[in-house]
C-alpha cells in the first residue's frame, strides 16, 4: 500500500509526548456475561414486538375514534384522535429507532476500526496528467488558431441571458409615477365618504364618541370591493377615529378644520413597515404599534415619539355631513404606510409644523 498522499507529512509536529496508540479494547458487560447479553437481546425483541401492536392501535383509532372527540384531562386538552395518532405512531417509530440503536450499541461488535486518510488534493502526477489532457483538449478544439471562437461563444451566451431576464418583467405592474399615483399613493377615501365602524359597519356620529374613546373605522365604499381587491384597499384605507379634549391637544394652524370638536381620524397603517396600529393609551394620547412599538402622539398630529418609525401618522381631514355623520373631506394628503424610495417624505408633517 502506498500512503504517499497523506494529508500531513509531519503528524507528530509539536507533540511533546508520543502518541501512545489506540487504547486497548475493553469488552462490554454484555459481551462477557451471557445473562446480560441475553437480557439485552430480549429487551430489543420486546421493543420491536411492541411496534405491530402500536401500529394496529393507530389504525383502530383512525376508524373508531370520532373526529371531534376531545380529551380534557388536567393540562392535557386536545383532540382525541390527534393525541391517539401521536402516541401510537410516535411510540412505534421511536421504538424501532431505540431497538436498532440498542442493537448497534450492545450486540454488534464494538471494536474500533482505523482507516487511512488521504489529502484532499490530487498527487503531482495526477495534476500533471490532467493539465496535459486539458492542453490536448484545447489543441483539439481549435481555439489556438481560431482565437475569436471562444469570445464569440461566450459573448453569445452572455447576451442570451438578457432575454431570459427580460422575461421576468411581467412579474408585476411597473411602479412608474402614473402607476404609483393610482396605487400606493392613494386610498379609496374621497370627499363625502362616510366613516363606518369596522365591526358593525354603522356610520359614525360625533355624539356617539366619548372623550378618550377610540374606534376602528373604514370608508363606507369599502363594501364595493371583494376578495383580493378588498384586501388591497383595506390594507391602506383602515383608520382610527379618536375623540380627545380639544383643549388638551395641539392642533396646528394648517389642520385647524380637519377635526370635528376634538374628533380626529388617522391612518391605522404604521409608517414603519405597515402593521395596523392598535394600542391606545387614552391618558397620554399615545398610540402604540404592536409590531415594533413605534409610538405616535395623536394629540400632536400623529408625530413619532418613540420607536423605529420615521414619519408621522397621516391624518385624514374629516367633517360632519348634512345628516350629522362623520365624512372625509378628501383622501389622505400624503401616502399612508411605509415610505418608499421615489417619494421625498421630508415635507410630511413634523413636530412643530404649523
Amino acid at each position, binding site marked *: 500500500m502506498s*500512503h504517499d498522499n497523506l494529508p500531513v507529512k509531519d*503528524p507528530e509536529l*509539536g507533540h511533546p509526548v508520543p502518541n501512545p496508540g489506540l487504547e486497548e479494547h475493553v469488552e462490554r458487560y454484555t459481551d462477557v456475561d451471557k445473562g446480560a447479553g441475553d437480557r439485552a437481546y430480549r429487551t430489543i425483541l420486546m421493543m420491536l414486538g411492541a411496534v405491530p401492536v402500536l401500529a394496529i392501535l393507530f389504525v383502530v383509532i383512525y376508524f373508531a375514534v370520532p373526529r371531534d372527540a376531545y380529551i380534557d384531562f388536567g393540562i392535557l386538552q*386536545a383532540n382525541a384522535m390527534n393525541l391517539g395518532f401521536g402516541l401510537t405512531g410516535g411510540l412505534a417509530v421511536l421504538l424501532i429507532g431505540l431497538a436498532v*440503536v440498542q442493537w*448497534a450499541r450492545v450486540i*454488534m461488535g464494538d471494536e474500533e476500526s482505523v482507516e487511512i486518510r488521504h489529502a484532499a488534493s490530487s498527487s503531482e502526477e495526477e495534476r500533471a496528467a490532467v493539465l496535459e489532457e486539458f492542453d490536448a483538449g484545447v489543441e483539439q478544439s481549435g481555439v489556438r488558431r481560431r482565437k475569436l471562437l471562444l469570445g464569440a461563444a461566450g459573448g453569445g451566451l452572455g447576451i442570451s441571458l438578457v432575454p431570459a431576464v427580460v422575461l421576468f418583467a411581467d412579474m408585476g405592474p411597473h411602479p412608474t409615477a402614473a402607476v404609483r399615483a393610482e396605487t400606493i399613493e392613494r386610498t379609496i377615501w374621497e370627499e363625502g365618504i362616510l366613516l363606518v365602524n369596522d365591526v358593525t359597519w354603522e356610520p359614525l356620529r360625533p355624539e356617539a364618541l366619548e372623550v378618550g374613546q377610540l374606534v376602528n373605522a373604514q370608508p363606507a365604499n369599502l363594501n364595493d370591493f371583494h376578495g383580493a381587491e378588498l384586501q388591497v384597499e383595506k390594507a391602506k384605507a383602515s383608520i382610527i377615529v379618536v375623540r380627545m379634549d380639544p383643549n388638551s391637544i395641539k392642533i396646528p394652524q394648517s389642520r385647524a378644520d380637519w377635526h370635528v370638536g376634538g374628533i380626529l381620524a388617522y391612518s391605522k397603517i404604521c409608517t414603519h413597515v405597515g402593521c395596523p396600529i*392598535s394600542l391606545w393609551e387614552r391618558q397620554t394620547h399615545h398610540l402604540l404599534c404592536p409590531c415594533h412599538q413605534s409610538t405616535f402622539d395623536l394629540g400632536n398630529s400623529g408625530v413619532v415619539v418613540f420607536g423605529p418609525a420615521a414619519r408621522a401618522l397621516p391624518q385624514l381631514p374629516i367633517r360632519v355631513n348634512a345628516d350629522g355623520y362623520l365624512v372625509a373631506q378628501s383622501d389622505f394628503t400624503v401616502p399612508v404606510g411605509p415610505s418608499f424610495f421615489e417619494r421625498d417624505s421630508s415635507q410630511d408633517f413634523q413636530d412643530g409644523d404649523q
Partner: protein
Amino acid sequence: MATPTRVAESSPAVEADRAPASKPKEMHGVAKWADERIGIAKIGKFGLRKVFPDHWSFLLGEIALYSFIILLLTGVFLTIWFKPSMAEIEYDGSYQLLKGMPVSEAFASTLDISFDVRGGLLVRQIHHWAALLFVAAATVHMLRVFFTGAFRKPREVNWLIGVGLLSLSLIAGFAGYSLPDDLLSGTGLRFVDGLIRSIPIIGTWAEFFVFGGEYPGSILIPRLYMVHILLVPGILLGLISAHLALVVYHKHTQYPGAGRTENNVVGYPLFPIYMAKAGGFFFIVFGFLVLMGGFFQINPVWLYGPYDPAKVTAGSQPDWYMGWVEGAIRIIPAMEWHIAGTTWTWSVFLPGVGLMGVLFVGLGLWPFIESWITGDKREHHLLDRPRNAPTRTALGVAGMTCYGMFWLSGGNDIIATRFNLDLNAITLFMRVAVFVAPVIAFIITKRIALSLQRADRERVLHGSEDGMIVRSPEGGYSEAHLPVSKEEEFLLTQHLQHKVLEQGHDTDARGVQRKKGGVGRLQARLSRWYLGHDIPKATASEIEAAHNHGAHGEVEGSHGAPELDGDGTGATPHHSADEDAHSGSTAG
C-alpha cells in the same frame, strides 16, 4: 469523489482482523444481477466498511438531515389537500366558530387539513415542529463546526455550502409560515413587504414584482408555494447532497486522543454499525417529532383567524429563527435620508436586509480570515478543543451573545408585560446591550479558555491531586499528585500552537510592502491579538523534569515549569532562541 485506487486501501486494520475465507465468495441472485448492470460490488467495496468516528456532537448534522427528510415526507402529504390560492370563499368546514366567514382558499384548506382530514392535524404539526427543529439543529451543528475548527482546510467549501444551507432554510421556513394566510402569517408578510420596499433605489419595483402589484395582491401565496415546495427544497436537496458527498470525500473529522492522528480516522464501519446507529437515530428523531405533533399544539391558525389587513394581535411573534431580525428592527432608532427628492429608509433596510447580509457574509468569510490571521495552511482532521483556540472561541461566544441580545429584543413587549418593566427602557437598554454584552462575553470567555489551558498544563506537569493531605515531618501540609495516564498526557499536549506572524522589517508606514518572510502590519497585529495569549503547553523537557521530580517522591510546586505572569499572558508559544524578540504579551 475519491478515485478508485484509494478505495483499495480502506480500513486495513479491520480487514486484517477477519479470518481469510478459504475460498473466494461468489455473488448470486439480485446482487449478481445488479452488479452486472451497475457494478454495485465496486460501490460496496468503497463504501460498505467506511469508517465514521463516533461522538454525540456529530449527531447534530444528522438531526438536521433527518428533520429535512421528515419535512419532505410530511410536506408531500400536506400538498394533497392544501390549495395555494388567495381567492375568497365562504368557509364551510367543521370548525364551527368560523363557519360562513369569507376566507381565502389557502386558509380554508388549512382548516380542512386540521379538522376534516384524519391525521391531517398530526402531519401539519409534525411538519411545523420539524421545520423548527431543522433550523435549530443546523444552527447548533454550525456552532459545533465553528467551535471545534472543523471548517479549516480542507473543509472550507463544505462550510460555505453549510452557510448556503442555513440561509436557505430560513427562507424555506418563512415561506412556509406564510402559506396558511392566517392573521399571523399575513402580519409576517406585511413585514416582508415593508422590508422589500425599504431596499434603496429598487425597493418599490421589487415590491411590485414580488407581490404582483400592491400588497397583499392575489398572487403572492401561489408564488410562495412554488418557492416553498419546489425551488428552495430543490436547491436544499442539491446542496445537502453535495454537503454529504464532501463529508464522505474528506472523511469526517475526529476529536484528538490516543491513536488518533491527522492521517487516520478511528471509528466504526458504515456497515453494520454506523448504518444501524444512524438509521436508528432517524427513527428516534422521527418518533420524537410524531410525539411532539401529537402532544404539543403549534400554529393553531383557527385561533388567529383569517388574514385581515386591519387587524393584528399584540405580542405576535415570528418563528424563533426570525426573532433576531425582528429584534433588530424593533430597537433601531428611526433613520430616514432624503436625497434629491428620494427617501432612504435605513431603519428598516439596515436591521432587516443588512444585518442578515452581515451575518451570512461574515460566516462565509470566517475560515479564510482565520487562516490569514494564523498563517495556518495545513490540513486539519483533528478537531480543536475550544480552549485551545481561545480567541476563536471567545469570538463565537460574543457572536452568540450578540445574536441572543437581538433575539431578546424581539420579545421586548413580552418581557415588558411579564416582568412589569417599561418598554421604552428595555428598548434603550438593548440598544446598548447589543454592543456591550458581546464585548463582555468575549473577555470572560477568553479568560476561561486561558485558565483551562493553564489547568491542562498544570495537570500534565503535576498530575492530578489524589485527595490525600499529607503532613511532612517538618509540619508542612501537601497533597500528593498522581501522574496522569499516557493517554491523557498525550491528549493535553497534542495540539498545535501557532506562532504569531511577524511583521516584515521593511514594511512602509502603511504596512503594505512585505519583506520576504514577514507579513503586513495589520496581519501581524491581528495575529498577535489572535494567538499571542496562548499558555505555552508543556514541552518535552518540562514533562521530563516534572516526571523526575515525581520519581523522587517530591510533590507540589512548579519547579520544572517557567513561572507564568499574573494574567497568564506570559510567553509566546513555541519559544525558540531566535524568537525571543517578541513576546506577544499585550492586553489580555
